[in-house]
């Protein structure tokens, strides 16, 4: 499978994401924020970092870049899209996912090995995990507090669209301990922790993140 990894000005984790794609057995295709086509990829990853310097709001300016017009259109047709950290913020700003991410409640940047529960394995990106699997994946963010109105949170919970939830303490003030969510169709996933940093035993907390890159499925069996 060909998986595109988008680089915006200020993106940090595109190289790690591309490496994770290859370790997961897929082909990584570099995409640039100014691109007007997706180079025939089957899926897209929006990696972490500080695209456009986080100016205005995290992800607010990236959302209007040429490549995002293509990503939004493709996502609407069912292409798997994974947004990690800043990528999650971009997906929320694009309205591909509900809610928003605000500054951490405790106002400090957080960087830790984070315990998570994978609560939905029916998305395009989580099919290799057992439902309820507890994993450890690196978390690093300054603006990772997931917020949405009560009605939206109830809908996410009721429809099983919370993909991952924080365990052993809430690291950033996210409502209902939400670490990641998906859209109704299950092809778009936003995740605050960084699975691309947890794919090799040599570095980081282990290989619990590899499943996100090894089992991307084009059609969701929901």
């Amino acid at each position, binding site marked *: 499978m060909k998986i595109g990894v988008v680089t915006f000005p200020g993106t940090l984790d595109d190289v790690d994401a591309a490496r994770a794609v290859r370790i997961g057995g897929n082909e990584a295709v570099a995409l640039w924020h100014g691109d007007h086509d997706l180079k025939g990829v089957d899926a897209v990853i929006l990696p972490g970092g500080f695209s456009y310097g986080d100016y205005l709001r995290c992800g607010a300016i990236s959302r209007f870049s040429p490549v995002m017009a293509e990503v939004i259109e493709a996502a609407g047709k069912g292409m798997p899209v994974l947004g990690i950290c800043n990528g999650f913020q971009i997906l929320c*700003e694009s309205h591909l996912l509900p*809610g*928003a991410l*605000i500054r951490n409640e405790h*106002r400090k940047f957080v960087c830790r090995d984070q315990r998570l529960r994978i609560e939905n394995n029916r998305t395009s990106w989580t099919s290799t995990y057992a439902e309820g699997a507890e994993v450890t994946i690196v978390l690093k963010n300054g603006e990772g507090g997931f917020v*949405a109105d009560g009605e939206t949170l109830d809908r996410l919970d009721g429809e099983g669209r919370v993909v991952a939830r924080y365990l052993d303490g809430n690291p950033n003030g996210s409502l209902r301990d939400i670490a990641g969510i998906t859209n109704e169709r299950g092809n778009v996933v936003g995740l605050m922790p960084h699975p691309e940093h947890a794919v090799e035993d040599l570095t980081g907390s282990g290989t619990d993140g590899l499943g996100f890159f090894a089992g991307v499925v084009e059609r969701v069996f929901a």
Partner: protein
Amino acid sequence: MPPSVPDRIRAMPRVVVDVMPKPEILDPQGKAVLGALPRLGFSGISEVRQGKRFELEVPEVTDEVLAEIEKIADTFLANTVIENYTVRVDQK
């Protein structure tokens, strides 16, 4: 004598967009400012909310221009999931 540059800038009508976090949304930056006030010797401030102010200069203010700026504010300057905004013409 031609007007100086600052005079010409002042002559341009200006539309102000104020963006504030919604009341129910936590504002960690406002809280940090509030927390610093007593340390600086200021007392009696019970709450601080931090927002953003945008000043947009336009050749003239018309209903069309204001409608356009309303759209800019609604789709770009503010994220209406977490923020409210107001649009007003700066009379000065």
